[in-house]
């Protein structure tokens, strides 16, 4: 195989993961809408999960559920860690959204820059 394509496949996961992660981070920092920021935050977290799961895969392996028919299993430990991380992520999202609802009731807007423009927050 062409070495360039080989290199691409070997690191394609990492390239895309990096792109997803950075895009999520960009949304969180650049946007002012609080809901969109939280969406960006959860994209950012989800792409980090990919960084954990990708190295756990063995090409030609099967899911880590034991069966006499198979002998090569992918690594179960990253899966466990990411299960925990997903739960943490949704907990954070729920709390963040609850705060957004309350902020909307208190300020009448969910755009950060509008709230800052009133000048009471410096």
């Amino acid at each position, binding site marked *: 195989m062409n070495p360039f394509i080989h290199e691409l496949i070997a690191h394609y996961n990492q390239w895309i993961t*990096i792109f997803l992660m950075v895009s999520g981070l960009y949304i969180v920092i650049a946007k002012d*809408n609080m809901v969109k920021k939280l969406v960006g935050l959860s*994209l950012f977290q989800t792409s980090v999960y*990919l960084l954990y799961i990708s190295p756990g895969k063995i090409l030609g392996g099967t899911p*880590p559920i034991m069966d006499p028919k198979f002998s090569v299993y992918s690594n179960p430990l990253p899966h466990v860690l990411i299960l*925990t991380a997903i739960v943490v992520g949704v907990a954070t999202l729920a709390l963040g959204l609850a705060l957004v609802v309350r902020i909307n009731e*208190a300020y009448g807007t969910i755009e950060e820059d*509008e*709230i800052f423009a009133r000048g009471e927050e410096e």
Partner: protein
Amino acid sequence: MEALINMVLLTLLAIVTIGVIRMKNLFAVVILSGIYSFLMASVFIVLDAIDVAMTEASVGAGISTVLLLGTLYLTKSEETEPLHKPYVALFLAAVTAGALIYGTLGLPPFGAPDAPIHLHVANRYIENWKEETGVPNVVTSVLASYRGFDTLGETAVIFTAGIGVLLLLKGRKSPGAETPDMQAEAVAARAAAREAEAEADAEDNLS
């Protein structure tokens, strides 16, 4: 074949992400983030992480989407154009990307069976499951037994979020909240900020 499906799904993920960045309608953004979660779940299946895929599909595409839509129903559905230019964000994102590229390219290649993570801690879980836990789904046995304390922590996080949301949203709205005046106030503040910005731009152009 596995690698090919994986690449196609990942490319789709990247496209959806660009959509999320560019869309202004928040409903569209929420639906795209649901699609993102489903695609991610598919990637996890290809990567043999079926427990994770199941969770990501039910949580990311299910519960999260419901909560996001619920929030949009209570607030509003259009994003307004940010006042400031996103240079800072672009810069920070570029720095992070640089660090990640520098850092992760030295890691073992995708799918290699001799990477360190396959050789050290995890092999015990796969080799000794029968004598030590007797649970064929190794993910369950690691989750609930070997690293059971992490899972207690995870349950505690859910508990924290549950009580937290109850504390924040239970009971009646505080009186006087969200009056039309406040919305007018927000619009006025925004208009003023825009004018100031336009003036600053004009001055920049003059000089």
